[in-house]
């Protein structure tokens, strides 16, 4: 995919289409997140956008405690994708207390706060 001058929009458009696409620096070859105009690793400004595999690992996690009448406890995690980037996310399909650091997960596009967002589920097999 071609370089774009609108990295935030590029990422969000990807989510809207149900795809997680991230910028990879043409100069240093590293992915970064969140998408921006300047590579945070080497400050170059040319990127190619690639869909990620979705394979990732929980880097750290917490349970936000909330009264049941307000929706109950929920998970917040940092997922590290195999492309080498970390992003905030939430693990679905598992009690929030059961999410552990090092757990292998699959990142996918789901819904959070009424919009398309990267969520995670325990990897199968």
């Amino acid at each position: 995919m071609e370089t774009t001058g609108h990295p935030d929009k590029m990422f969000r458009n990807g989510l809207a289409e149900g795809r997680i696409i991230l910028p990879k620096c043409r100069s240093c070859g590293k992915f970064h997140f969140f998408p921006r105009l300047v590579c945070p690793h080497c400050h170059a400004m040319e990127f190619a956008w690639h869909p990620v595999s979705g394979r990732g690992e929980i880097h750290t996690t917490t349970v936000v405690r909330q009264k049941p009448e307000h929706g109950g406890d929920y998970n917040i995690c940092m997922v590290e994708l195999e492309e080498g980037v970390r992003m905030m996310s939430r693990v679905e399909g598992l009690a929030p207390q059961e999410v552990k650091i090092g757990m292998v997960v699959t990142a996918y596009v789901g819904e959070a706060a009424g919009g398309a967002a990267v969520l995670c589920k325990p990897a199968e097999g």
Partner: protein
Amino acid sequence: MTNQLRGKAAIVGTGHAGFGEAHGLTAYEIMAQAALAALGDAGLKLNAVDGLFCTMMEDSMPALMAAEYLGIRPRFVEGTMTGGSSFVNYLTSATMALEAGLCDVALIVYGSNQRTASGKLVTVSRPPPYEAPYNPRYPISAYALAAARHMHEFGTTREQLADVAVAARGWAQQNPEAFERGPLTQEQVLSARMVCDPLSVRDCCLVTDGGGAVVLVRAERAKDFPKPPVYVLGSAAESAHRQISQMPDFTVTAARESGQRAFAAAGVKPADIDVVELYDAFTINTILFLEDLGFCKKGEGGTFVEGGRIAPGGVLPVNTNGGGLSCVHPGMYGIFTIIEAARQIRGDAPGLQIKDVNLALAHGNGGVLTSQVTAILGSAATL
């Protein structure tokens, strides 16, 4: 700060106001009370202040609001907002401004009525766009994520986190100015209501009202004031990220760099420091900063704080006023690390006074382990 600025400015007055609950007072009234207390301590009047260093949570131009409120027309105004570290950061800019002759009397000041006004942290910060959809509870979720990773990598335990809170309470119990002075055991911290795992409500700083201020002048005239001067020997900052999701390593803060530079500027090392005042917004902070500032190795902070080792009578006096965990935490705490460090050096600490304090470290944290600022303060003997 480079060595050129070592000892060039000195704190000649400290003041505070509205600790705990300041019913009926506005944030600016608390700010003004603190300013007047610090100026009174220095034997100065408001009209002497020509440099103002201030930020607050109330407004987008708080330094200008403060100047107006105080009825002064400062010729040097500094309001850089790096969160709770701002005030330690101002030690650098105030020293520079004084040394350059841009002002003669620098007032660093803060005030907040967040507890009586709203009962929670007041902030104009907006949720970061790539985090907001997951509804993190700002700022505690961020610190919980860091604490969880530290526990995973180094085997740090909730008991060790609790020991930080218990130690802080131990100091607070000896400090009549501290807000929370009741008994607190490790078991009480562990069994307290969980907020964001692994942090319970007792791993969190207080939500109080309060204000604080310090007055600085050039070192050459610092001996002409009523209280013993406290010299700024070195101060340095580093900012690593803004959002917690961008923290490069969840177990290492930029205090490593700010600390190294502050120690180098002051020409001292961690073992030389007599008292340590750290921004303890959460119990994990104390552990991270003790490691990153070089008081122990990375990963050994949990062991370092165990069993009262940073409590009264322990091996290292840390947060001798009771800290943000038990003394006062009005949204931004950084100014109070300076005030307690300065008072320990002067010998008029409100609680337990450590004997023969010549060197004290004040460390500010801003955002979510974001901005780290370290200052080394010293008595006249350290010049």
